[in-house]
């Protein structure tokens, strides 16, 4: 059959077709005498359709689509780094707090899936030495599991900073992927109670190195100061903002904060207010982040909220 069947183009009717037509037509089309009886002559298959046929029809459940082996859409990667202090002063409840929080965080991260980006993480512990708990090969997907960390040794914070700086790199660090993939700004989460025991005690030395790194400067950072005696100064130096330093009240609080950071960064924040003269809708703004985190914290600690309004007879 020479009819062009593909859509979009009108088809000329060819000679062969006319040929077909003659063979095909049993009744003389030009004979006005013949009254065609639908029931007998003209109907090909007189199929009385008792019901109008619904066409969501019986499209088969397999077919060409199933042979396509569709892959998930290509996604960016959202890297999450945990920098966890495992120095001896963390022994006991503090370490327990960190571990159980991380268990929950991991379990949660596993469930955060969206087509905008894929979460991957790495954990750097620093105690006597500095170690990539999740391996030297880079970021790993969150499968939900967490291996308990044990406290030992000093706090090598400055060394941890140097190690992190090396890995925040696309050419030789953790952002070098087999196939071409880009990342969203990384999320860095510091959990520590302590003081740097290698060099500057507020971590200035290591942080100065880190600040040379572009990825670090573009990262979202929060710090969780574990315990009342924690060195807030070091944490503040790390985040660059006092408001992004928190105290780990409980595992849930920690989880809530990380949740907030992850969600703030995975999608572009809707900071753009359309009636501002020149809004910057794609700026992930830390003000919203701070606000969100604080709101969550207030939910958990309502008594902090109520101080002002208390009136006494």
């Amino acid at each position, binding site marked *: *059959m020479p*009819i062009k069947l*593909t859509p*979009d183009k009108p*088809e000329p*009717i060819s000679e062969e*077709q006319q040929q077909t037509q003659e063979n*095909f037509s049993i009744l*003389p*089309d030009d004979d006005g005498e013949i*009254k065609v009886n*639908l*029931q007998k002559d003209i*109907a*090909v298959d007189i*199929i009385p*359709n008792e019901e109008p*046929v619904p*066409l*969501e*029809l019986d*499209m*088969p459940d*397999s*077919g060409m*689509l199933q042979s*396509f*082996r*569709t892959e*998930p*859409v*290509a996604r960016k990667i959202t890297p999450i780094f945990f920098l966890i202090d495992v120095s001896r002063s963390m022994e006991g409840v503090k370490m327990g707090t960190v571990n159980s929080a991380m268990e929950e965080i991991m379990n949660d991260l596993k469930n955060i*899936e*969206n*087509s*905008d980006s894929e979460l991957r993480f790495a954990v750097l512990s620093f105690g006597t030495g500095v170690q990539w708990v999740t391996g030297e090969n880079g970021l790993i997907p969150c499968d939900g599991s967490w291996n308990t960390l044990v406290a030992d040794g000093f706090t090598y914070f400055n060394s941890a900073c140097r190690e992190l700086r090396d890995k925040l790199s696309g050419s030789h660090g953790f*952002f070098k992927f087999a196939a*071409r*993939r*880009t*990342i*969203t*700004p990384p999320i860095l989460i510091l959990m520590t109670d302590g003081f740097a025991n290698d060099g500057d005690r507020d971590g200035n030395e290591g942080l100065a190195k880190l600040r040379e790194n*572009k*990825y670090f400067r*573009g990262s979202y950072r929060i710090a969780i100061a574990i315990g009342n005696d924690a060195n807030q100064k070091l944490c503040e130096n790390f985040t660059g903002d006092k408001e992004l330093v928190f105290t780990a009240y409980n595992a849930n609080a920690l989880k*809530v904060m990380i*949740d907030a950071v992850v*969600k703030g960064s995975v999608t*572009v924040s809707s900071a753009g207010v*359309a*009636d501002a003269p020149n809004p910057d*809708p*794609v*700026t*992930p703004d830390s003000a919203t982040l701070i606000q*969100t985190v604080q*709101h*969550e914290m207030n*939910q958990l600690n309502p008594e902090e909220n109520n101080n002002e309004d208390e009136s006494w007879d």
Partner: protein
Amino acid sequence: MAELKTGTVISTENGESLTIDSFIAEGGQGYVYKVTYKGQPRALKLYKPEAVKKLDWFHDNIREEIKVGALSDKFIWPEDLTVPINNTFGYIMPLKPPEYVDFDDILLAKCELSSFYAMTNCALNIVSAFRLLHRKGYAYQDLNNGNFFIRLRDGDVLICDNDNVSPEDNPSGIAGKARYMSPSVVMGGRPNRLTDRFSLAVCLFLLFIRCHPLEGVKALSVPEMNDYYLQKHYGKEPLFIADPIDHSNGPNRDIHRNFYLRWPLMTNTMKQLFTRTFSQEAMLQNESKYPLEIEWCRALLQFRTYFFKCPLCEQETFLDSDPPVCKCCGRQYPVLGMLKVNGVNGSHGYKIPLVKDVCIFREHLDDFSSTEQFVSQPVGMVRTKISEGTAGLSNISNTNWFYTIGGATYTCVPKQTVKLRNGMTIRIGNRDVTVHM
């Protein structure tokens, strides 16, 4: 996190009350709960006051939406508002039925539509819903992958998150996700009907091609998709992955396998509509060049008509070659001819291949003019007798058809089948369908 406990009772503005049954999910702007409202299961969205800048705007907007009522049954539309609770409020809407999935689950390849027919149907449902929305003078503003629930079996669609929907001159201030925003919006402009069309095309591209239209090798090669590069690749210098002139943001065989598999399947019209949407001219100079919903409707309906069951193996196939070869069994199958619905009003008309069980739909005939919402109502169905090379068309509508043979006019009443012959014209409704065999 989940702020409302099961069993909590909340009053609504309409003087009703609802009871919280369970927590469903947390979104960027709020929490969603399953609730009981007037004895019926419903969903409640409770805003996070810290995440929504113009809470009052949303409150007023939703109140207006409730007054107007749902545009069609494809919209999960607000039904009632709660009284203020804990510095915030929520709105009540229909609950998503369990057989509908999040669009994201399809994009993550966790599940798949039952067929390309269903996929195209899904696109038709989405496009015609937005056509309706725009015809009513609204803009959606923040259209992205999170806004659709899809039924895999047939591609039925429910549009959620309608709290942003508002008259075009009243923006919500929500900018949304850069990946879905028209470049002008990425650069700080206001979302409107035209920018909705860009977002719509991104969703369609993702649905059919399963990759992002602007995320070719160039965009994926940036060191980090930070503010600077976001503005560059989605705002200042967006470049289509299939740009016909500039290939520098083209696909990569390893990363964009979906593209290589699926783009060739698109008909020329589909390709042209995508190419026009993501052309430099439309994206950067003249957003009115973005295809209209009606253009998508026409292209998609024609596209959908070319997916049918192979007469030999009964699996879904696509007609894109002559002679036609089944995409599943690889065999050449007979297509006995073509029905042609002539176009009017800038429509090219439609072609319907004479293959068993293929249907003519109301929209083939009325060209989307009489329906507000696409309903996909079949009016005629092709019958074949391959051995004799004959085809018929069954009248599955409830009106009579008329056709002429040799100057005499005959009637085909509902449930009858008319035998088709070359050159014959069948009058269905007020349209002529011609037979080419």
